[in-house]
């Protein structure tokens, strides 16, 4: 490797990493937050079978899962202005990613909620809980645990998908790599560098996922159980 290439790699590293930290990560986090809240609402509306809203949710999910993310980005950023709605690039990206991922997260939430046995809500009703109370106190916590791996999966995908924001003028990780690659005529090196930084970010997220999944276990502090027959067996987590 020539000295020049090494020099380029070293100086460009922070020039790509910093936008990664200042733009890509916030973009991912904010978009995901939007998709979580909206996704949960879309799921609840279907599960609770609220008449009109349920249909709206169904159509929403159908459209946002059925069209490409990049097309949605372009419609929001380039298309809306001709209808008089101007949104800046960064918020437009959050909106597009959030609305898109909400459709996927809605299905994750819905199937997780439907996986909770009816007996849980029946028992809740018989101890006097109302439907909202049963949902909030009993069903949703359990559903969240089931939904967690899929939700986190979507988060990790989103991290990579934020690179599409470069197509609507957001200067994030990938854009920076593109700019330096063009300037230095070293596309291979620069794009590999960008890939490496994405890999580092997603690896951190994957570790975070394992850590959090370990915390999402309902286990008493005394993890050994004495069963009816007097045996002792250690609990392997639930």
């Amino acid at each position, binding site marked *: 490797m020539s000295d020049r290439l090494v020099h380029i790699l070293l100086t460009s590293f922070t020039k790509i990493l910093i936008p990664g930290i200042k733009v890509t990560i916030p973009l991912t986090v904010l978009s995901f937050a939007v998709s979580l809240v909206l996704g949960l609402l879309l799921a609840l509306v279907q599960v609770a079978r609220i008449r009109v809203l349920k249909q709206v949710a169904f159509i929403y999910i159908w459209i946002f899962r059925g069209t490409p993310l990049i097309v949605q980005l372009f419609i929001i950023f380039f298309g809306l202005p001709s209808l008089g709605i101007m949104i800046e690039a960064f918020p437009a990206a959050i909106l597009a990613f959030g609305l898109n991922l909400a459709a996927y997260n809605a299905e994750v939430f819905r199937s997780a909620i439907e996986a909770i046995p009816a007996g849980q809500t029946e028992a809740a009703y018989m101890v006097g*809980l109302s439907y909202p109370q049963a949902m909030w106190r009993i069903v949703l916590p359990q559903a969240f645990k089931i939904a967690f791996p899929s939700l986190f999966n979507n988060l990790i995908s989103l991290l990579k998908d934020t690179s599409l924001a470069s197509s609507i003028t957001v200067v994030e990780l990938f854009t920076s790599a593109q700019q330096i690659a063009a300037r230095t005529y070293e596309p291979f090196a620069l794009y590999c560098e960008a890939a490496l930084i994405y890999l580092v970010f997603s690896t951190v997220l994957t570790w975070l996922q394992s850590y959090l999944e370990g915390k999402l276990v309902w286990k008493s502090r005394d993890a050994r159980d004495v069963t*009816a027959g007097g045996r002792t067996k250690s609990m392997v987590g*639930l």
Partner: protein
Amino acid sequence: MLSVKDLHKSFGDDEILRGIDIEIDKGEVIAVIGPSGSGKTTMLRCISYLEKADSGRMEFKCCDDKAQVEEYDMHHATPAEIRRIRQHMGFVFQGFNLFQNKTALGNVMEGLVTARRMEKNKAEEISRKMLGKVGLAERADYYPGELSGGQQQRVAIARALALGPDIMLFDEPTSALDPELTREVLDTIRELASEGTTMLVVTHEMSFAREVAGRVIFMEDGVIVEQGAPAQVFDSPSQERTREFLKRST
């Protein structure tokens, strides 16, 4: 105390309950026996409004002789009415249905804290007492997944008792348990009976029914075929169908 008249329930074309009349007095322990598909569980679920009856009249009159009688049209009962009548009932499910995300103590406390809005310390005190009553005081901080089936069912009983219901409904409480664990649950129920708890127990445990119940009801094909004192129903049934069933079950 509780009376149900002319209860009908069909699932699609299947008529499961064909006009059930049942009356329970305070302090009575009633065992309901009968073959699978006879409608025993459906009857219990209609009484607790977990299923909506096609028709039926329910009347609840409690203890204090105030002429306060609550009347319910079982098909048209409103959510508010259902909530009101359920306050008088405790339900123990065949599959326990403990809240998986709460400890034993949390399970027992849940109704008190969330539905009755009781202050947490008071709810905890009552709940610990109930857990002690079913013999599980030291397991208060265990999660359902860490308890045996018999222990889970006893927590479920404590959970129902904590709300101070006027009548306890048991839907085959030991059917999901192996014989060893069945005993501990039956002991708990036996103790409740000796304390005068009003109970309606759907069960397959014939010897338990004979021993603990004050009245036995035999159901088949959605009707009550025969009812009476255990000795009478078990030893000298007046109906042929009852005889057939008892012969098959022993």
